[in-house]
């Protein structure tokens, strides 16, 4: 897809975190510049700018109400579906302005996938139908492509071995952890460039959580991941880069600090980050 709008060179302002030293825009999956989200005129997220490096895991951490999920949902235009929601600033997928006038939200969402807090496989569909649902939604009919994508995605989601013999079974026959992995497979099957994960383990038990966390590390080669998590240990385990958000005085979420996860947790540059990651509040 080509973007007809000319792209001005991105100014590397001081609010922009540079990750891992020198990095050209070519290596960035997404860039956020002064992104704000408001619901019916009330700001929920304000002036967030950072880069999402390609084939890395970026975690968004922060206490409840800091706007993590709101910001995440701005990245594939899920707020389009909410009346009164306004996203301002600039969000780019590669060099493509995702809120640009020529952008079709449905095509964007096939390139920026999403996994939700609770496993939500389609109950009326079989495991196979769930896995290929995104492809079918996007007009793909060719059986060989569907089969190939489904198998690849189920393998990538570490689900293939346990479901290959019962692809026609209903998705509800799977355990909670398996259902969430099916949802990951479903998102992966469309081969998105970016996968957004909104607290994907918050409704799972520790062993299912561990499987998903391992999975996230394995998926990096295939897809850029942005994950929202409440759990700081999880952020340190799965992410390369971390963005810390906090609720400002007017209850709008603000970005406090962004940087390599190791640095953010060991030597944060903001005192509030230090307090949060060391469990002094939140």
């Amino acid at each position, binding site marked *: *897809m080509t973007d007809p709008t000319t792209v001005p060179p991105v100014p590397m302002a001081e609010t922009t975190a540079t990750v891992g030293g020198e990095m050209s825009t070519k290596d960035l999956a997404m860039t956020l510049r002064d992104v704000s989200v408001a619901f019916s005129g009330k700001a929920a997220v304000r002036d967030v700018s950072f880069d999402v490096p390609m*084939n890395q895991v970026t975690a968004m951490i922060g206490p409840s109400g800091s706007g993590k999920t709101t910001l995440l949902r701005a990245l594939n235009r899920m707020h389009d579906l909410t009346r009164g929601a306004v996203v301002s600033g600039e969000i780019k997928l590669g060099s493509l302005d995702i809120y640009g006038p020529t952008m*079709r939200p*449905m*095509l964007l969402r*096939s*390139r920026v996938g999403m996994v939700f807090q609770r496993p939500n496989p389609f109950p009326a569909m079989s495991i196979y139908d769930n896995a290929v649902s995104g*492809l079918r939604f*996007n*007009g*793909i009919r060719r059986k060989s*492509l569907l089969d*190939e*994508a489904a198998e*690849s995605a189920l393998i990538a989601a570490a689900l293939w071995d346990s479901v290959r013999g019962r692809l026609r079974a209903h998705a509800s026959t799977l355990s909670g952890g398996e259902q969430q992995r099916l949802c990951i497979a479903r998102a992966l099957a*469309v*081969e998105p*460039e970016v996968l957004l994960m909104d607290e994907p383990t918050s409704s799972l038990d520790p062993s299912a959580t561990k499987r998903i966390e391992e999975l996230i590390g394995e998926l990096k*080669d*295939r897809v850029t991941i942005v994950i929202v998590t409440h759990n700081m240990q999880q952020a340190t385990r799965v992410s390369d880069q971390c963005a810390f958000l906090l609720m400002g005085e007017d209850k709008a979420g603000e970005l406090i600090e962004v940087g390599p996860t190791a640095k953010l947790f060991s030597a944060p540059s903001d005192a509030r980050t230090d307090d949060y990651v060391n469990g002094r509040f939140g």
Partner: protein
Amino acid sequence: MTVMAADPILARRAEIQQIAQDTARRRQLFSRFGMLVCRACLVIALIPLVALLVYVVIRGASAWNWAFFSHLPTPAGIPGGGISNAIVGSVVIDVIAAAAAIPFGIGAGLFLSHSDGRIASVLRLSADVLSGVPSIVVAIFAYIVLVSRHPGSLGHFSGVAASFAIGIIMLPIIIRASETAIRGVPQVLSEAALALGARRATVARKVVLPTALPGLITAVLLAVARGAGETAPLLFTAIGSQFMAWSPLKPMNAIPLVIYQNGIQAYPDLVKIAWGSALFLVVAVLILSVGSRMVATRLRRVRRD
């Protein structure tokens, strides 16, 4: 990242994105078309409803004046007749019916919402069957019990007989709607109260019912709205009257009866009274429905803030 492993994925990604983009326009058109069809269906479904309402308003509004609400009916040919006795009759009949049906209905709903045993399923089935029974059947039942002459019966037409019939019609509606409302109360609230040492009855009275209140109000008002419009039970019980009757032990007039009896007359004055009464009934039901919704949302909002 090994190039070998990534290649098929990148190739597939390119192919998928190509197909998605190529079909995007067609899919979007199809989607728009689908939305259009849904909208058209909505409009078509609303046509008879809106037409009926508009017609009732146009025909009924011209009948409304002070005398219409304050005067007693007059014989055909004598102008200035009203429906005051029918308004009184309907209010008395429906208030008694609701007052009788509400405690039993909510009590049964509370029971059903907390049990899934055999008794509960029999009760639930009975309520469903009862709500499906034609009102004429309820009417003949009420007639036999309270109107026809036998020991224990009043032996004549009366308002209470009508209340009895209409209460029976309201009952299953209240039962099932309050069961749903009470089931909507999160289990954790009951558990929290039980964990504080409350008895089950206390939990129901102090926690479950107050929490379900918005839903219960809706349940009751919907049942009243339904009951207020029933006609067949009134024909067999209240029978109608030309006089003002405040005592429910006497035959009473009621709005649906006025519509039935006047609407089929050859005199334009009487037909006009029927339209005016129809509009009155529609407005009353509208007020009940909108009112119940407003009360419910206000209660919910108060609790959220």
